[in-house]
């Protein structure tokens, strides 16, 4: 089953959604959450996850912070901003309308 293609254009939506449910996750945890909640169907590539995170950070949708973990290592954790919450709403409704339209095509064509 192709895993990456299914994420085309919807990585932002997934990241925002996951961060809205569970704030302050680091990159690996976000990746794991995407895989976990989708039952290993969806998988974010490391090579595209981090650029996407930085892009959203620059856009002001999420904000990052370095925290110290018990292991003594630092981790960069992300959380949603107010602008990000708004963006999430917009992305969600866009996704809804797109999937609705695709479903209609599949049914009626």
């Amino acid at each position, binding site marked *: 089953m192709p895993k990456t293609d299914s994420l085309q254009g919807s990585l932002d939506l997934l990241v925002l959604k996951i961060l809205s449910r569970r704030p302050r996750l680091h990159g690996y945890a976000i990746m794991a959450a995407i895989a976990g909640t989708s039952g290993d169907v969806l998988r974010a590539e490391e090579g595209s996850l*981090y650029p996407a995170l930085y892009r959203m950070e620059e856009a002001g949708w999420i904000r990052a912070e370095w925290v110290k973990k018990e292991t003594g290592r630092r*981790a960069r954790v992300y959380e949603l901003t107010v602008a990000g919450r708004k963006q999430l709403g917009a992305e969600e409704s866009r996704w809804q309308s797109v999937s609705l339209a695709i479903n209609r095509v599949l049914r009626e064509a």
Partner: protein
Amino acid sequence: MSLWSRISNAVHGERLNSEIDEELQAHVEEAIASGLDPREARRAFGSTLRAREASHSIRAAGWLESLLADANFGWRQLCRNKVASFAAVLSLALGIGSCVAAFRLIDALLWRPLPISNANNLYVLSRKMIGLYGKPIEDGYWATPDFKLMRDAVKDQADLIAISDADRTDISWSTSDDVERAHVVYVSGNMFPLFGLEPALGRLLYPADDRGSGTGPYAVLSWDYWNHRFGRDPHVLGRPLHIGDQTFEIIGVGPRGFLGTEKGTVTDIFLPLSVNSMVTEDKADWHRIYVMLKPGVNPGTGLEPIRQHLSAVNHAFGVECTTCYRGETKASIDRFLNQTLIFNPAGAGISDLQKEYRRFLAVLGLMVVLVLLIACANVANMMTAQAAARSQEMALRISIGAGRRRLVQLILTQSALLALLASVVGACFAAWSAPFVLSLVNPPDNPARLDLPADWRVLLFGLGLMILVVLLLGLLPALRASAVRPVAALKGGEDPHSPRRLMRGAIALQVAFCFLVLFLSSLFVTSFQRLQNRPLGFSTDRLLLLETSAGKGQLPVVWNQTAEALRAAPGVDSVAIAGWPILGRIRINSDISINGAPPSATPAFFLNVSPGWLSTMKIPLVSGRDFRREETSPGAAIVNETFAKTFFPGQDAIGRTFERGVNQPLNKIVGVTPDLPDHDLREPNGPVFYVPFSEIDDKSAPTPAGFATFIIHTESRNPLALADSLRQLIAQRHNGLRVSNVTTQLDLVRDQTVRERLIATLAAFFAVVALLLAGVGLYAVLNYSVLQRRREIGIRMAIGSSRAGIVRIVTLDVFLMIALGGCVGAALGLGAARYVASLFYQVKATDVDIIALPACALLITALVATLPAVLRALRTDPREILRAE
């Protein structure tokens, strides 16, 4: 966060990289911890370097990063040639600083609008006509009765405001205090409200204060005067101010920043028009008239009807005026009354200083721009040479994929760096030099004062100038460098001549500009020298001048007794009295009528002097004798030679008589003196007559004199050493005489040439700078060219070219450029000199020595500058060159 964080990330690029690395590393470890195979976990990332690059470019502003890299590179380039870079920055700084300073002066004096509301609706009224002496004149001064008629005539379309010029007046803040001087301006009561000005303290003058009856009289101080004379003391309100025999009450202080309407002079005290005794006189043209259009009146179409209306009113006033033209013929009165009224925009104020210095500032502006261009050409040449030396590097950069835009940016960044450094130094120079030059504009005892703020206007100009300099410096070398063809450049040079062609063009331009600067400065310096060396006809040695006023006036006998007392003081050689000093600011003309005929076409100027004035001033007599003690005016007169020649041509003037106007008492000429410049060194001598200081009225009773000047010849070399004791001696006599100003005759003569000295000094300074820069530029270009052509020169020598031949090929084209530039410069100079001919004294631009001087200076500079390169060319060792190949 976004833009700022991207900029900050660009500046701290290394820190960003380590952060990204740390996060990615943490990710891998997390993956391993959750049970993934370490190799697998690492492989999932692909190339870490690529991941980092992709992340980096998102989080950092790429344009800024490349700019920083270029700036860094440019800075290292500049540091590599420390001496050249230092010289470049210094010469550019001088150019930029001079330009900004000149702009500050020009803007402040000529362009900057007055800090009033509706400044662009403000006009000043003047008239053109044939004067009573038959010459066309433009006159900006008006009589108050005329003003009132005109004001009422157009009151629906415009407001007319009367404002006198600032007059240095003797004032006193208490009856016992010493007299001091302040710039007093008379204004009509509507000025402050119409200008929309608010008081800083108390209240300003209203139209009601200007009715000349009832309350008052009131006076308003300017903020500036209040600040420096009273230290912003609020208790100044209500204080009495004594001017002559009038007493005023201070009722307020004007707004900060409003220095009056006369640019160059700061008004100290505003008085209502009506308190001046001249307001009722029909023939006293003494104040300016400003016109403020009513809101809603279109300046394009509304001015002409107002002008015609005013013309009609003014003409009717002139026709009605019976006292104005006593003794003139009907024809000359009619000619005089045919006046054309003119509106000139006055939003930037109106002053004589503007008129006097407009052309001077234009020349100054031209010279500083030329110096800046010369400096730019120098630095551009330097950068072209550097770029040519780096053509291989550029070719390499292009080969490995650098965009041409990037290369242009690289070189422009370097020139921007230079311009920025130069601008910082230049700004400091401008901050110092603009006030410094301004302080030299007028005589030291009455300096010109202008508001010289460093505000957005100056900043904007500086910024624009900097961008211009960057483009001038960098654009050509940048385009050239980016046009490098990698194949040719890497093979070892394509056309070795092309950068030199560009540089030679720059040399020609530089020489042309330099010649222009030299030419103008030689004109100004020669003019100043001739003016300064003009024979005076009197001695300025050891002459102390005490300008003295006497309130309501004192009889001649009191003045004479005071002169006696001064004569008895130790250290005093001789003492004379004159109405005012010669070559000072005062000059009064008088009609001359011979045998009851109508006044002559030429007026004569007069001065009343005591007996002994001629000997104190060391003025010889051509014939006749000095005044006697008992002689009075009218009665006796001494005239200069021009007077005698003008009014009694071909006759002996001694014993003849003249009247000062028709039906006036006779004056009998008792002596003739040589001509001497009496008011203005620049002017040719006119007819002058002297009358005795003691005046009598038509009933032969002595008339009091309100002011006069004691001229004291001292024994000591420094006449000012006696000033304080003599001043006290006069004050102790308690006879109403007070010294209001102390100066020396030598200072008055020096003050005559203030403007010329200033122009000559600045012009000479910029000439030296221009010559130096051009010389350095020439040296650099020739030196570079010899280095570039070493191979060619070596081969020529090897095949037997003579030394003269080598010198010729090295210098021929450069001297052709110099000749070309010189010719262009001379042509430009002759054109420019025509425009400023009015600033010269007895100098013509076509004089041989005026052209020869700059040409010689340029030629000598060129010879000196080319010598090192020629020697280097001659020392070329062909064997060494050919072996190296």
